[in-house]
C-alpha cells in the first residue's frame, strides 16, 4: 500500500459516512445533469441533422431540376434582343431573306431552350396575375373589364413551372 493511499483512507475515515454519501450523491446529480445536457444537445443536433438531410435531399433534387436556370435567365436578354431586332427589321422593310434567317435562328434558340423546360408566360387577353405578370402601365378599364392584360411590354418566362421573369404588361384598371 502506497503512502498516498494510506493517507487517503485515513482522511476518508475522518469524514462522517453520511457526508460522504451526500458528497457522492451530489457528484452523481452533477454527472446526471451533465449527461442530460449532453443528451439534449445531441437530440438537438440529431433533429437539426435530420432536417438538414431532408432539406439537402430536396435542394439536390431542385438543383438537378434547375441546373441551367442561371444560364437560361441570362439568355432571356438575348432572346429579347433577337425579337427586338426582328420587329425593327420588319418595320424598316428589311429584305425578307434576312428577316427569315434571323427568325429561323431565334426559333432554333427558343426550341433549344424549350427542350430545357422554358415556356413563355401567356399574357395578352389574360387576367392579370401578380404571380406571373408585373403591371408596368395602366389604362382605364371599361366596366367589368378590370385587370385584363391588353399589351405585353416584355415577355415573361417560366422554367419547369417556376417563374424566371414575370411578363411586363399593360393592364386595365378602374380609374381612381
Amino acid at each position, binding site marked *: 500500500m502506497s503512502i498516498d493511499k494510506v493517507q487517503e483512507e485515513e482522511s476518508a475515515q475522518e469524514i462522517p459516512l453520511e457526508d460522504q454519501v451526500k458528497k457522492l450523491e451530489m457528484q452523481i446529480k452533477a454527472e446526471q445533469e451533465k449527461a442530460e445536457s449532453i443528451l439534449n444537445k445531441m*437530440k438537438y443536433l440529431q*433533429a437539426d441533422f435530420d*432536417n438538414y438531410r431532408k*432539406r439537402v435531399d430536396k435542394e439536390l433534387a431542385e438543383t438537378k431540376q434547375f441546373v441551367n436556370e442561371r444560364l437560361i435567365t441570362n439568355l432571356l436578354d438575348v432572346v429579347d434582343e433577337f425579337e427586338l431586332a426582328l420587329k425593327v427589321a420588319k418595320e424598316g422593310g428589311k429584305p425578307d431573306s434576312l428577316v427569315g434567317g434571323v427568325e429561323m435562328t431565334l426559333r432554333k434558340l427558343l426550341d433549344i431552350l424549350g427542350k430545357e423546360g422554358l415556356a413563355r408566360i401567356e399574357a395578352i387577353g389574360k387576367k392579370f396575375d401578380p404571380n406571373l405578370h408585373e*403591371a408596368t402601365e395602366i389604362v382605364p378599364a371599361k366596366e367589368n373589364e*378590370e385587370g385584363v392584360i391588353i399589351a405585353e*411590354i416584355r415577355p415573361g418566362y417560366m422554367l419547369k413551372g417556376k417563374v424566371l421573369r414575370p411578363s411586363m404588361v399593360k393592364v386595365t384598371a378602374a380609374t381612381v
Partner: protein
Amino acid sequence: MSKPETEKIIGIDLGTTNSAAALMEAGRPVVIPSAEGQTAAGKMFPSVVAFTKDGQVIVGEAAKRQAASNPEGTIFEIKRKMGTDYTVNIYFKSYTPQQISSLILQKIKKDAETFLGRPVKKTVITVPAHFNDNQRQATKDAGEIAGLEVVRIINEPTAACLAYGLDKAEKEMKICVFSFGGGTHDVTLMEFGGGVFQVLATSGDTQTGGADIDNAIVQLLKEEFRKQTGIELTDKLALTRLKEAAEKAKIELSNLVTTDIDLPFIAADANNPKHLHYTLTKAKLEDLALPIVKRIEEPIRRVLADAKLTTKDVDRIILIGGQTRMPLVRKMVEDFFGKPAERGLDPMECVAVGAAIQGAVLAGGHIVT
C-alpha cells in the same frame, strides 16, 4: 425528439423595404429563403402588402408587381408608421400598421415552416435603434397578430454585432454600425461591456440610398445615348433595360475595373435601329457615386459629436445593407475612421442572422460550438 423541434426561435429582420429571416441549425445560421425564390434582393423579399378588390391579400414580390394596377390597395414601407395612430384605409376597411406588418410576418412564418417542414411559433424581431417604446410594442403586437410569440425585440445594430460575435469579446469597446441600404442609411454608435450592448447615439438619412447610385448610372447612360443619337429614352421597356443594366454594371464593378453595357435595339429612328454601347469604368462609377456616398459622412460626424467621442475611440466598425458591398462605400468608412471594418458576412443577411443567434441563445443553450 419533439421537444427540441418545437423550440426553434427564428430571427426576423422586419425591414422598411425588404425583410428576411434566419435560424440556427446545428450551431450555424441559415437564412430562410422566401417562397418566391431568389430575387434581386437575394433571399430577402419586399416588405409590400396588397389587398385586392376581390378580397385577396398578397405579400412580397407579387404585391410589388401588382402595385401599379392597384395603387390604392398596395402598402409600401409600413414600418415608417409603426407605433403611430395612422390607419390604412383600403376598400372600406381600415388597418393599423401592426395589422399590415403582421401580414408580412405571417408570410415569413409560412415560408419558415415550409423550409423547416414543421411549425414555427417563436421569434426574435429586430427594430431600428431609434425606435421608441410605442414602436417596439407595435412590432411585438404585429408578431402576436401573426401568431408568433415574440420572445424578444432587439436593435438592428445589436443583431449585427451578435452576427459578428462581438458579444464574445471579453473587453469593453465602442462599435459603430453603419447601415446603407437601397433607400436609407443610418449610423449607430454602441458601447459593449459586461455582456450588454448600449446605444450611445444614432443618426441617419431616410432619403439617401443605393438606388440613388443606380439612378445616377441610368442618367449617365440616357445622356450618352442622347448625345450619340439625339433620341431621348422614355419608353418603359428601354428604361427597364437601362435600370437592369445599371444594377448589373454596379455589381460587376465591385470586382472589375471596366464593364461593357450593351443594349442593342434600345430605340429606333425613321431609318435605323439604335444601339447603346457604353464602357463603364470603375473610376467613372466612383465619380458618379462619390457625391451620394459623401452624404453618409454627416450622420457619422453627428453620432460622434452626440456621444462626445472621436473616430479614435471607436474600436470596431460593422457595415450592413446591400450598398456597403460597394468598395467605395467601405473605403470611405474605413478612411474616415482610419481602421478596417469587419468583413466576412453578407451585409444584407447579417441582421436576420444576429436575430437568429439571439433566438438560439434564448431557446436555451443548444448552440453547438
